[in-house]
């Protein structure tokens, strides 16, 4: 009885320690977002006061000012079009590439995969001038088309890798059985692979969306007024001479909110896709 009670105590204490640790890590990660949110409701003088005030009279003046000064929805629409467009195009290409690499492997497949990934190791600023010149010559500067193409190429290596990993987990016997029933490549992908790997593919889509939504380097350098997404809007509130932290927090909150909400809604698929693999 004593022994059992001791085990029970250990299990309970382990549960509470795990819970406390999880909460601690979650709060630690969420802290900058929470602080940004709080600051966005402060006045400028409260935003930089030390020690920082936790209890204060909230104000919406920063949001009103952002609304007056900037066309938020124009920037948001650009973000939506560019991130969804690049994700759609990227998924189309990544699924085809991963299908061929996973089920028709050659002796160069692994090297090709590694080479694709190695392009991510290059610091973006290293190719800024050539890309800028290409964009200028093809008339892609400050266009959403230009950003869609660039983001697609930028996220492709990760997307191909992820989809390839999920496809590899699908037993080849399933595809062979489908082939015996007369299925060809497109049907195999649509009717067999996509339903089996939907969790993994959803995770890939989400990751690509998040990466495209948050990308700032290229969007700042290649757009000006017409195609600038929300990241450019945030940058426009950063000031070298003047304290506008509350306004900056308000605009950052507005920029993060859509993707945060989207991630929240789809977190189940994201976690399942990233942790369980393609086939349960």
């Amino acid at each position: 009885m004593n022994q059992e009670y001791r085990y029970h105590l250990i299990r309970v204490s382990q549960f509470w320690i795990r819970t406390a640790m999880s909460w601690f890590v979650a709060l630690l990660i969420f802290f900058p977002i929470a602080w940004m949110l709080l600051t966005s409701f402060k006045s400028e003088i409260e935003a930089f006061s030390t020690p920082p005030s936790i209890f204060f009279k909230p104000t919406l003046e920063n949001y009103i000012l952002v609304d007056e000064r900037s066309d938020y929805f124009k920037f948001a629409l650009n973000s939506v079009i560019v991130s969804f467009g690049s994700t759609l195009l990227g998924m189309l290409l990544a699924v085809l590439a991963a299908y061929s690499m996973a089920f028709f492997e050659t002796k160069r497949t692994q090297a090709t995969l590694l080479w694709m990934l190695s392009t991510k190791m290059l610091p973006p600023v290293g190719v800024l001038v050539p890309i800028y010149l290409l964009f200028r010559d093809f008339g892609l500067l400050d266009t959403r088309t230009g950003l869609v193409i660039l983001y697609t190429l930028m996220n492709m290596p990760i997307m191909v890798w992820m989809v390839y990993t999920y496809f590899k987990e699908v037993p080849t016997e399933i595809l062979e059985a489908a082939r015996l029933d007369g299925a060809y490549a497109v049907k195999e992908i649509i009717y067999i692979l996509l339903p089996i790997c939907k969790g993994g593919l959803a995770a890939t889509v989400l990751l690509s969306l998040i990466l495209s939504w948050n990308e700032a380097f290229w969007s700042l350098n290649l757009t000006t007024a017409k195609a600038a997404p929300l990241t450019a809007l945030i940058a426009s509130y950063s000031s070298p001479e003047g304290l506008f932290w509350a306004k900056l927090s308000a605009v950052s909150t507005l920029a993060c909110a859509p993707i945060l909400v989207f991630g929240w809604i789809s977190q189940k698929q994201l976690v399942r896709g990233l942790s369980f693999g393609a086939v349960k």
Partner: protein
Amino acid sequence: MKKSQLISTLTYTAIASAQLSFAETTITIGTVNNGDMIRMQGLSAEFENRHPDIKLEWVVLEENVLRQKLTNDIATKGGQFDVMTIGMYEAPMWGKKGWLNELSDLPEAYDLIDIFPAIRDGLSNDGKLYGLPFYGESSVTYYRTDQFDQAGLEMPEQPTWTQVKEFAMKLHNPEKEQYGICLRGKAGWGENMALITTMSNAFGARWFNPEWKPEFDGGAWRETLSFYVDLLGKYGPPGASGNGFNENLALFNTGKCAMWVDASVAGSFVTDPTQSKVHENVGFALAPMEVTSNGAGWLWTWALAIPSSSDAVSAARTFVTWATSKEYVALVASTSGIKNVPPGTRASTYDEKYLTEAPFAEITLQAMGNADPINSTKNPKPYVGVQFVGIPEFQAIGTQVGKLFSGALAGTSNVDNALKAAQEYTSRQMNRAGYF
């Protein structure tokens, strides 16, 4: 029937021509997110009402991002911008390279002579003007009048750095989070090096001798850096090596600095009750001198320029002349109050009303008048610029030297090592660039 068709055709042609003659020209303006620039953006409707054929599109970015973006665009003739906000450092260099349109034959009503000569010269190359100044600044000393009164101290009109150190020592009270002095420590050619260069000018140092040899191995530089590290290390706030303009402004506005030497543009921030907790107790003095007053206060201006790659030069010219005109100053005074007019560019701005209502105006005017980008050191120098050196290599050199000096302040290096490394690095870069 044929006659009526002809009449219709002629009518349509006439309407189309009329529409063409009123065709809208859109100009894209790249600017920084400073209070004065945002005010200008807010007043763009006024401009568009007066010029219905011109539409303004704004691209507002953080200073460093904007500088990188503009440099890329102008060097590759990307043509993304019709109006660029650039500083005194870029305007003459970019003009010389043919990247900017010369701004000659300005309308008489613009009154170019009204613009401060130092600002006009700083935006010109070979007598050709390449930018119209939007606002200008020098550096001044801000101090807490209440703390000075309590301690029985009196701030001279232009203190010496030695006096500033004595005041800082007496007013430093870290237990109460009150620091004797706040100065820039964050590395960068436009951050700590702007302040340190003016300090070095006052101590009799210069970046280069007339043969373009760097002088960090000289006694004046050693004295400057030792003084700076000692002053800020002993009587400055903790973590001073990470503080730039905004961080120090936050410290001063929350009552944590007894003195602060920085840009005159902060005058409107520290006296603004919505931003500053000490707005009623701020005094102004000229930037400190030491063995000389030459170059003790810096000179900078944000100007509007038209890149040669613009395809809407005429519309851009109409806009830049409006935004930097007396008429615009009057418009800001009537809409946002006289304290908020763009400072430091026009002599006519400093009329009696402005001098009375803006407590920082007089000292700014005096500081702007003292600043001379050509004679800003005790001994002759081969470059133009008070707190910067007007050569293309300076951005990289200034930032690297800034990092070395910031390291000395943070304690990761010491004064001697920082100066030795600065001398070696600068000599190498200047030698490679072919200066000697």
